[in-house]
């Protein structure tokens, strides 16, 4: 019998440390499939963030560097500038990219650095126990906003895809979700486009992925998917925000 479904070569055999129902694993798989399909494993360098995906390099089978919290875009810049032939991507959470690393992502995007950022938005700091993030929704309870995010004190959640696409230089900015199959198919397409644009020598590309953190949201896997669909997608609309002319 022919094998019709197999693990991408770019993905390792290791069991992940992610919680049951966490969508980091789906994001990993999509990236691995795209890398396989584009045949670029031998010249790809990933940059792991500080966050739940800090050990991402254990789940991929190509070169990886591990960044400090938020600094992945600067590291990707360093690599891509000295080795333009490599395919480079950062994998970052919302605390990593939109809080401590906001400076690095904005400037890398604005310089038009020729790498790709995969941005996993799960509205909380998953790794450190579910604290408030720049993407936490209004009134959403977290361990540091026990009464809910008070927008009059800490402002509205940051819409990263919109923010980056407001810059003139980036080539491709999209937001998709890694929730149900219909979203996941579109998410993969966006990731593939982002890598393809990088291969074509286009400027910076970013794909924001609406994700879940069932553990810190205090929901079951399925409830978390529904919560993300009902609460996050209306605030963080899906689609392509910027495409090359």
């Amino acid at each position, binding site marked *: 019998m022919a094998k019709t479904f197999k693990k991408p070569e770019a993905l390792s055999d290791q069991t992940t440390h992610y919680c049951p129902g966490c969508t980091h694993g789906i994001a990993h798989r999509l990236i691995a499939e795209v890398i396989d399909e584009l045949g670029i494993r031998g010249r790809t*360098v990933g940059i792991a963030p500080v966050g739940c995906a800090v050990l991402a390099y254990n789940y991929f089978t190509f070169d990886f*560097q591990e960044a400090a919290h938020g600094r992945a875009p600067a590291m990707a810049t360093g690599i891509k500038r000295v080795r333009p032939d490599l395919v480079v991507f950062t994998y970052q959470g919302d605390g990593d990219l939109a809080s401590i690393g906001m400076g690095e992502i904005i400037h890398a995007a604005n310089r038009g650095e020729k790498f790709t950022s995969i941005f996993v938005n799960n509205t909380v700091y998953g790794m450190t126990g579910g604290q408030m993030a720049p993407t936490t929704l209004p009134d959403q309870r977290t361990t540091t906003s026990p009464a809910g995010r008070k927008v009059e004190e800490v402002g509205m959640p940051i819409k990263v895809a919109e923010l980056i696409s407001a810059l003139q230089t980036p080539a491709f900015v999209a937001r998709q979700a890694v929730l149900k199959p219909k979203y996941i198919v579109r998410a993969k397409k966006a990731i593939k486009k982002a890598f393809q644009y990088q291969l074509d020598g286009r400027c910076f590309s970013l794909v924001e992925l609406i994700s879940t953190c069932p553990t810190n949201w205090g929901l079951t896997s399925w409830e978390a998917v529904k919560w993300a669909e009902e609460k996050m997608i209306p605030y963080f609309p899906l689609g392509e925000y910027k495409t090359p002319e």
Partner: protein
Amino acid sequence: MGRILMKGNEAIGEAAIRAGCLNYFAYPITPQSEVAEYLSRRMPEVGGVFLQGESEVAVGYMIFGAAGCGARVFTTSSSPGISLMSEALSYISGAECPAVFVNIMRGGPGLGGILPSQADYFQATKGGGHGDYRLLVMAPAGVQEAVEMVMKAFPLAEKYRNPVMILGDGLIGQMMEPVEFPDELKSEPSNNDDWATSGMETRKSSRRNLVKSLFLDSEQLEAHNRVLKAKYDRMRREEVRYEPYNLEADYKALIVSYGTMSRVCRTAVDILKVEGFEVGMVRPQTLFPFPEKAIEEAVRRESCKVAVSIEMSMGQMVEDVERSVRGRCPVEWFGKSGGDVPTPEEVIDAVKSFVKELI
């Protein structure tokens, strides 16, 4: 190119190119912005990479990324900028990547001033960033020596897979002196097939490489930190550099001084010699590893009554001098850190007063 007159900052930039380093990332800050200005012109000429980052924080990680994928890379900054790069220095050391950082020191703390200083001695030699790591720190006393040290720094960084810091005071960057560039270092970065993220298909082996500093398991972290310690111990055995001065005489006092300050001290030693007042000097050229043995040996001289650390800080290197002297004689400090370099007369008065106190 024979001897030419060059400003320290520009000579440092040129020296890196001659050492085969064609990758430079930096953020402007007085008193070393001329390095970036010079290299923004020179790097394109030699087909190199020049990028002005958005902050020293980002620059630190651009260096980390580039070093991690196996490129020869360097940056220059001054004190407040080095504070911001200290996080990256810790990560780069932890991940064992080679890179060269130049600190043309200005006065501190805080915004401090823009005049020369040596007040980042602790930051350079004792850490600055978090964790158990060391930088190999070299301190030039002139433009020619800065050139030579920058050129040596790259092979040393690669030998140890560790960041090397050139610690110069503002005068080293700002003054013009005649320089001659040693023969170009054409060597490729040493073989990094077994660790750099150069892309799997570009290397001979088929393994994939990871550049990281995270070791969640206590035994693994312990083992990793012991590997690092063994490297620092090897530096202590193999890389100590210093210049002795007037140590043949029967000196009453031993001066320990580095960088621009040591040049003033040398003048003071010469003036005192004419008066018949002998003073010896050890000038550390490496601050880590520190020339402990040379200093300990020098104070064993029967005539030597006191060791004096003379530095443009409120007393930092003096702690290493005390450590080196091991209680064999009193240790004193003299210095200034507002931005004025002490004069030979001030040095002479200080040394004489320390010796007199002991008689």
